[in-house]
């Protein structure tokens, strides 16, 4: 039983990160029906920029670990949001009117480009976050040793998701994003500036991905230029699992995928962990073809 609860917290922490990244995929997909494969590299870039800012500006020394990290998070979000918007401008916007899969290939190209940019700028070696910003001890909760950082990661990702949920559900811009996701044409007729919505999506989605990268850097301490692929694939899986285009779906899908992985590793086999996760995904899709929370779309006639 102890094993079960420990693995559950493992899964929740990883799942929280998957969910944050998955939100970026799902938001872009919702509005543009584009799988933004370069999103995973924006996540990597977030981790690297976070490291640069952290070491060059000594924020945590000046402001203390808490406010320093919060400010750092906002700076990373801002920078990655700008990169995200630029990416859209350069690689996707020229392809708005062309076949959908052309933009996918452009996204793949952008992913290769960004990954290698990071490699050339920062070098191919692992980069290491400074130690001791987040506490490295474990606390005992009901007889379980749970690392503090894991709780911090869990809280942060939950907080970010709540903020996004509020933004999407309660604000005017959020409503516009939802409207554009349902029907772009109708949204435009209703006086919604769809281009602004797209820009918004390419600011918010990458910002979340970037902050997830920072979180990964702070949590695990080690980052490398290829780490985006693995996380990206998992997060994309999570987005699909929850029903792509659906924001609560991405959150549920991410958390669920993290837990499935941890449980698969614990009770079946570690080496087959990813295969187990994909098997579960395929099974779910066979029975619910549009994901867990995805809406049933009637075939157009």
């Amino acid at each position, binding site marked *: 039983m102890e094993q079960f609860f420990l693995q559950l917290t*493992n899964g929740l922490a*990883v799942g929280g990160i998957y969910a944050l990244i998955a939100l970026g995929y799902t938001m872009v997909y919702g509005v543009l029906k584009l799988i933004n494969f370069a999103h995973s590299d924006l996540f990597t870039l977030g981790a690297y920029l976070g490291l640069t800012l952290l070491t060059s500006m000594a924020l945590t020394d000046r402001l203390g670990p808490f406010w320093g990290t919060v400010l750092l998070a906002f700076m990373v979000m801002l920078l990655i949001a700008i990169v995200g918007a630029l990416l859209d401008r350069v690689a996707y916007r020229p392809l708005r009117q062309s076949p959908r899969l052309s933009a996918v290939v452009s996204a793949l190209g952008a992913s290769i480009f960004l990954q*290698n940019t990071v*490699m050339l700028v920062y070098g191919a070696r692992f980069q290491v976050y400074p130690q001791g910003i987040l506490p490295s001890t474990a606390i005992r909760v009901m007889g379980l*040793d749970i690392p503090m950082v894991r709780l911090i990661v869990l809280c942060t990702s939950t907080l970010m998701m709540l903020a996004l949920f509020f933004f999407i559900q309660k604000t005017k811009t959020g409503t516009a994003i939802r409207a554009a996701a349902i029907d772009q044409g109708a949204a435009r007729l209703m006086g919604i500036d769809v281009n602004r919505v797209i820009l918004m999506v390419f600011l918010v989605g990458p910002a979340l991905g970037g902050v997830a990268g920072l979180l990964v850097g702070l949590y*695990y301490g080690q980052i490398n230029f290829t*780490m985006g692929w693995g996380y990206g694939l998992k997060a994309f899986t999570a987005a699909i699992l929850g029903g792509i285009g659906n924001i609560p779906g991405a959150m549920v899908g991410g958390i669920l995928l993290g837990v499935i992985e941890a449980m698969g590793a614990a009770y079946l086999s*570690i*080496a087959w962990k990813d295969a187990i996760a994909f098997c579960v995904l395929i099974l779910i899709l066979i029975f619910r073809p549009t994901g867990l929370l995805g809406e049933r779309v009637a075939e157009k006639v």
Partner: protein
Amino acid sequence: MKKVLFILVALFVATATAAFAADPVKIGLMGPMTGSWASEGQEMKQVLDLLCEELNAKGGLMGQKVAVVSEDDGGDPRTASLAAQRLATQGIAAVIGTYGSAVTEATQNIYNEAKIIQVANGSTAIRLTEKGLKYFFRTCPRDDEQAKVAAATIEKLGVKKLAILHDNSTYAKGLAEEAKGLLAGKKGLEIVFFDALTPKEQDYTAILTKMKAAGPDFVFFTGYYGEGGLLLKQKRQMNWNVPFMGGDATNNPDLVKIAGKEAAAGFYFLSPPLPKDLPTQEAKAFLAAFTKKYGNPPNSIYPVLAGDGFRVITHAIAETKSTDPEKLAKYLKTELKEFPGLTGKISFNDKGDRIGEVYKVYKVNAEGQFILEP
């Protein structure tokens, strides 16, 4: 279609002919310059560039300059086979590399058929030298050598319940299975856990939690330093104090950086001796020169082994005054004895394997330094 084809062909021919121009003795380097293992390949190039410069400052070989021609193998077999074909057409006297065993294997036949001496630096899979290839050598020891030392160390430490963890790569799995084979059935020692993690992930707590439940008193991790550092760090975060030992792929200062000094302290690993622990002039001079040129000592042992490959092959060319592969292979197998390498004395047996007990046991101290165990 035809036009595009024509332009492509013209480009191909242009690039192909451009390769035949220079005159120096050319030594090829095949390494992963892009992709997941790019850090190894790029450092291999640094090491070879430095050694080549030094050699040229001393007058080169046979009165000619020496040049290093490097190609990217991308760390994947298909790219590597193309890199090998490309090197084979550039008139190189020998090739150094590469890192991964499967990648090396994809190129062995190409070099063998082209009669080019290949000195691998990081490919430890046993079967590479069991095929009877005439021109294949390696400066790194084989997995079974390392497994022997690992098994001996584990026995010496009086381990009762052992966990073995690998990462499903050719190298790590080979080492894990060799060690398991050697230790299985030993009295008083039980292997309570044997499984693989997925490399390049960052959260290994699920695995650690599972491993902890199996109750080992010693863990042998055969994978790489990136994962090794994270395992150490995450094991400390969950308050688990179990000694860890790693294979030679964990020998990298980045391990300590990733894990943090407290978590890394007490970690054992196996490795060919580091240049700093060798009393020889060559090793000291190399270390000083490398640090001076690039600002830090070499991070990984494999690039240093590539350096040894370069030094051995250029030594052989100088001694035989020839770049004839037959003569070079014969010289390396029969006449080269106890060559003072950067990682200890080097001689080769008939298969092209390095002879001698190369592996030493290291332990990380509280300062995060690598200390040679007596």
